């Protein structure tokens, strides 16, 4: 099963990368605000059971893919609603 993990800087955490992107977008004439830059990890998990796959990816997030002190994460499973 294909899983996608979205990792974001938590609200309140200074995100200079997001600020730089926002500044550049404004220079291009896009009136954007509060841009935040995170990370996407796509991976293939062996389990075909969505609940088991989600639980496994959650463990990956806790142990490596995100730092819970500064980052939040969201898991999307292909084909799962």
């Amino acid at each position, binding site marked *: 099963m294909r899983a996608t993990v979205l990792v974001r800087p938590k609200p309140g*955490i*200074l995100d*200079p990368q997001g600020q730089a992107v926002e500044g550049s977008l404004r220079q291009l004439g896009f009136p954007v605000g509060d841009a935040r830059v995170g990370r996407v990890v796509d991976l293939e998990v062996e389990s075909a059971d969505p609940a088991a796959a989600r639980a496994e990816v959650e463990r990956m997030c806790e142990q*490596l*893919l995100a*730092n819970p*002190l500064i980052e939040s994460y969201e898991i999307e499973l292909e084909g799962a609603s």
Partner: protein
Amino acid sequence: MSKPRIAVVAFPGSNDDRDALVALQALGAEAVAVWHAAEHLPDVAGIVLPGGFSYGDYLRCGAIARFSPAMRAVSEFAADGGPVLGICNGFQILCEAGLLPGALRPNASLSFVCRDVDLRIERTDTPFTSLCEPGQTLTIPIKHGEGCWYADDGLLGELEANGQIVLRYEDNPNGSIADVAGVVNAERNVMGLMPHPEHAVDPLLGSTDGALILRGLVEAARDRSVVGIGV
């Protein structure tokens, strides 16, 4: 008097390991290089995790290096009370490994900062700062892109109350919360700092203030060696 043996653990992408070895050697230690793949450390009385860009800073600085085989031995050594000093990337690795509180984020300026900074000694009740005076100012270089230390209000309050904030920048170069430049664990035997004491141990380098911190480690290692021989 025998020289205390101190390990400098190098990871793929470390680049200050040799400077750390030379500095420790000059300050009276027997410094030994240990490759990260080693599952067991040689018989040492102190450990330095040096600066650099382990694993290319992939994912997050220090996030991959914390899983190196040597890190298990480092954790055990720390749990046993052994003195461990993480410098720059070494600090990032110790935070990722949960051996030190907080996390390091990209500098607020988004610029890589490379210059001498003034640091204020906040605590002298750690092995690493025992040779310093409270409130003393040390001049030591920094060179990092991700040195913005972060802790939420609750954690910061706890660390302040426990006296775990050891070093602060006089003029914050990276946006670090509460100007924090260096912290210790609750047991005070593990310290991490973004500045590079190993680059400030000889007048030729512009400052010898880094020697105060490294010598503190060497002395702590010496004490540990003596105890070890007694047992």
